[in-house]
């Protein structure tokens, strides 16, 4: 468990953080720019001297009269820029942290890190500067992991990459998510990255924590600013149940129903995460019969919240625990006379599958 009670200020900006975060899985620190995400991460890394107390999995990193400097905190830090050492080869860059980690503390081997991040072909490169953006960032992540950290801090690791670089790295990050048994704090302002990678979400605004909870829970709260974002939506965890080769479709089952998505490259029985944007969900009072929309799920309206500009957000519950968000116009709400507690049919236009 990560317990942080940190206070930091510089100029007009102040950060007040008093939260507990889970000991494993990915916790996204989400917020607009200048919300203090990076500052928070730097304070946790010891790169900024915040006042307060920080404890990571039972190890105190700082307290009122005690401050462990960064190089003695067992963490890995990956920032926007890869910051590979230009005077060292790729191999030497990777070994930089490894060689400074005592033998008995080593949990990640060189071969493991190279394999996890697919660096086999890059090992022979002499000049780290000649790598592409995505390659550089992969080397930087492997270099960080080779210190066998107790916590991984990532500050928008994809922000400086183009879309090719991003898609180069995302699968590796998702894999790390499964392989690593350490907490990951992932700073981002991109909702798609967060929904894809995180299990837990801390929402920051102007240096204050607005929400701290599981990803499902936080994303489906209508009172948070996230709900107002254009790409707001809910996340559903489902199991791959069937592949239909004729129509090139895949069926996903979850506790509240099933979804058909375009043929996914995933094993039957594996667990996947799907993101359904609120703008892609419409509402019908009766089960529609003649429609091109393939996914129609029975749902119950749990909450209705005005978004402004003529639209409202509905929180729908599917089955026992799953949640769906739907953004519709005020006019639709009135013409259908939608009320909280009503049973409706949610029509899902498209589903983004994240594997």
């Amino acid at each position: 468990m990560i317990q942080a009670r940190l206070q930091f200020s510089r100029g007009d900006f102040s950060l007040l953080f008093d939260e507990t975060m889970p000991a494993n899985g990915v916790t996204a620190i989400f917020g607009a720019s200048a919300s203090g995400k990076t500052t928070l991460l730097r304070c946790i890394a010891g790169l900024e001297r915040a006042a307060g107390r920080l404890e990571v999995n039972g190890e105190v990193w700082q307290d009122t009269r005690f401050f462990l400097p960064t190089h003695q905190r067992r963490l890995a830090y990956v920032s926007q820029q890869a910051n590979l050492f230009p005077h060292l080869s790729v191999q030497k860059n990777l070994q930089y942290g490894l060689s400074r980690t005592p033998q008995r503390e080593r949990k990640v081997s060189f071969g493991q890190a190279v394999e996890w991040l697919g660096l086999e072909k890059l090992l022979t490169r002499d000049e780290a500067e000649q790598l592409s953006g995505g390659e550089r960032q992969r080397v930087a992540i492997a270099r960080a992991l080779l210190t066998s950290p107790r916590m991984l801090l990532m500050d928008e690791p994809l922000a400086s990459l183009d879309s090719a670089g991003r898609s180069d790295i995302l699968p590796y990050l998702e894999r790390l998510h499964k392989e690593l048994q350490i907490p990951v704090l992932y700073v981002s302002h991109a909702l798609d990255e967060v929904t894809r990678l995180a299990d837990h979400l801390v929402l920051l605004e102007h240096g204050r924590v607005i929400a701290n909870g599981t990803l499902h829970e936080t994303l489906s709260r209508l009172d948070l600013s996230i709900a107002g974002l254009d790409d707001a939506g809910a996340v559903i965890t489902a199991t791959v149940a069937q592949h239909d080769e004729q129509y090139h479709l895949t069926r996903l089952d979850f506790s509240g129903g099933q979804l058909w998505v375009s043929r996914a490259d995933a094993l039957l029985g594996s667990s996947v995460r799907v993101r359904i944007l609120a703008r892609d969900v419409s509402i019908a009072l009766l089960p529609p019969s003649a429609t091109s929309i393939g996914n129609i799920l029975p749902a119950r309206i749990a909450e209705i919240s005005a978004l402004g500009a003529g639209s409202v957000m509905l929180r729908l519950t599917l089955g026992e625990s799953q949640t769906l968000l739907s953004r519709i116009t005020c006019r639709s709400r009135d013409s259908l006379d939608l009320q909280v507690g009503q049973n409706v049919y949610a029509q899902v236009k498209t589903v983004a599958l994240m594997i």
Partner: protein
Amino acid sequence: MLPVLTPVDVAALWLTLKLASVVTLILLFIGTPLAWWLARTSGVCKSVVSALVTLPIVLPPTVIGFYLLLAMGPNGWVGQVMQALHLELLPFTFTGLVVASVIYSLPFVVQPLHNAFSAIPEPMLEIAASLRASPWDRFFSVALPLARPGLLTATVLGFAHTVGEFGVVLMIGGNIPDQTRVVAVQIYNHVEAMNYAAAQDLSLLMLVCSFLALLLLYHFNPTGRRK
């Protein structure tokens, strides 16, 4: 036509090389931490030290020499300390020349090092810290290698500037063979004695050597060639 050197000329050359080597070595030891400190701090203290370090560039060498002579003489504070410690007074000795040259050439070593250290991105050092490198370790494994072009420039400039020193030497060193008679003074001696041919030989040697040193520096130093 090859320059013809008398034994006195050779002695002066040898002394100059010895002086410049010793001074450069000392300057790298003093200048590196000083430049590192200047590159990492800000405030009044930094401005004061920066101004003091740069002073020898703008002052006439005779002014520096004059004040050093006063300080190191029997009535100066350095002289008093030396006498109290039963040590030889510094003026008109090789040691005195070394001390004076260190002060005189200091900016030529500190400036390039300062520039080189300032150019190292802070995140680079922070990443090194997150990779478990202690402050000393970061300095030697990241900062120094990245500052290598600056280090080379500092070495060459410090050495060359010490070789080319004249005014300060005359003021506090005089013209003592094998002690303080460096090449620059020897050339002056030749000119004073109307021996223009001998002055020409030594001068040409200095000119060619200095040019070659700078040529090598600019050719092999990778500054500004980064892709």
